[in-house]
């Protein structure tokens, strides 16, 4: 089933239900709107999961899109502020793509297509990461998920796919879901709980407070990560000096910016000095003079550098454990994939040139010693 045609239809009729709900909001309370929208989406999903006539499936798609539209309008309204700007178009598009891919993945009868739709979800989620300013994780997600994990899934699908005996193609257990109604009910409960927890008035104001409280700290943290990267600190202060030089020199002065010899650190080894949300650094120039230079905001360490510094400075234990987990998974995969050789303890000792543990006549051999 294609999403394109019904989506156009629903986008043109999107406003009336939203306006209607906005009117009803005073009567029923705004918390209920989210729950009702979740319920509409859930009911639509039940009909999409079961095999049925095409008309019913199109109606379910339209219903699901309507529920989704109400959810989006309500959630955007709760973020507050002015009308939806251009900044919300991209997350909206990527979010819709991710959701369409996810629904299609859950409902598609052919496993290979489900895996392909999951790649679509991964790419849309990565784009969402980009919107949220997590560039490194966005590309890591595409490389690790779409590039490695999904390819493994594809190989296993090819290894374990049954030859199509029936003419319909997909096996019956792929076409008929198990207990679709109760599964969607559980999903609806989770969705309603999450949306209430995420978008209630208190959660909304808590997030606004947290964003306001941590904005300056976050900037200071980003700058102070430079303290741990001496080479980058030197390069950054050289750039800052050059920018400063370009601003202050006379117009016809073509001489190069002064060279930074070293960055002065205070008694505690800190080089970055924070004043409100502006960072400055004290440098000693090549000619021996010392000066303080303001670091412009565009020189802040980029996303991947910040993650790298945090990973090794704040979460070294987590990094080690992640390494152990990967090593264990490697061993586990090797053990699972290896051809099983049924050798007892005694046979293995004999192969290694050691004496048997059990005397002859005793019940030795395979599995004799555990």
């Amino acid at each position: 089933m294609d999403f394109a045609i019904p989506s156009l239809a629903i986008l043109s009729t999107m406003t009336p239900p939203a306006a209607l709900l906005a009117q009803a909001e005073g009567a029923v309370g705004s918390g209920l709107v989210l729950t009702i929208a979740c319920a509409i989406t859930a009911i639509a999903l039940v009909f999409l999961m079961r095999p049925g006539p095409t008309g019913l499936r199109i109606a379910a798609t339209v219903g699901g899109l309507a529920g989704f539209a109400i959810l989006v309008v309500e959630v955007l309204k709760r973020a507050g502020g002015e009308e939806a700007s251009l900044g919300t178009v991209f997350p909206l598009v990527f979010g819709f793509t991710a959701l369409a891919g996810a629904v299609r993945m859950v409902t598609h009868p052919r496993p290979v297509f489900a895996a392909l739709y999951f790649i679509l979800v991964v790419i849309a989620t990565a784009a969402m990461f980009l919107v949220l300013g997590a560039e490194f994780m966005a590309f890591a997600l595409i490389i690790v998920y779409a590039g490695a994990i999904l390819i493994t899934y594809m190989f296993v699908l090819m290894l374990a796919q049954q030859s199509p005996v029936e003419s319909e193609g997909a096996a019956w257990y792929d076409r008929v879901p198990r207990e679709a109604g109760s599964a969607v009910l559980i999903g609806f409960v989770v969705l309603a709980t999450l949306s209430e927890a995420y978008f209630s008035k208190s959660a909304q104001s808590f997030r606004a407070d947290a964003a306001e409280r941590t904005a300056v700290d976050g900037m200071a943290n980003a700058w102070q990560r430079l303290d741990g990267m001496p080479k980058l600190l030197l390069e950054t202060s050289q750039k800052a000096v050059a920018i400063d030089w370009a601003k202050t020199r006379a117009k016809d002065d073509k001489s190069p910016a002064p060279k930074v010899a070293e960055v002065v650190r205070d008694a505690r080894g800190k080089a970055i000095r924070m004043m409100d949300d502006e960072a400055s650094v004290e440098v000693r120039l090549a000619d021996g003079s010392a000066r303080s230079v303001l670091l412009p905001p565009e020189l802040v360490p980029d996303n991947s550098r910040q993650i790298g510094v945090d990973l090794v400075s704040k979460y070294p234990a987590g990094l080690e454990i992640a390494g152990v987990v990967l090593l264990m998974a490697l061993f586990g995969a090797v053990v699972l994939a290896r051809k099983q050789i049924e050798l007892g303890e005694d046979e293995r000792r004999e192969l290694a040139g050691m004496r048997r543990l059990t005397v002859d006549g005793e019940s030795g051999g395979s599995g004799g010693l555990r």
Partner: protein
Amino acid sequence: MNGIAHTLLANSDAQAVNLALLMSALLFACGLVGFLSRRNMIIMFLCTELMFQAAALAMIAFGKVHHDVSGQVFVIFILTVAAAEAALALGLIVLLYRRRETLDSEAWSELKEA
């Protein structure tokens, strides 16, 4: 509050965070529904990956709210666990498939061989 800190609090950011959280809730619900109702073992594990994605998206969104990259560091750990889980689960699925010649999880509903 001025300069860059003010631009970090732009209204479109709050809306993007809200949309990302809504998406993460919807993706998680989709993954849960798929895990509970699909019979194909490979699709069931694919749905757990979908739930991992939803969790990662929520982490990044909350990291954005708190102006902290810790959320992104946690996503690295999620990726690690997801990769390890995929390697082990797919090996197990291949073994199970060799025993029963079917991917139907109902074939193993009694949790024993034969």
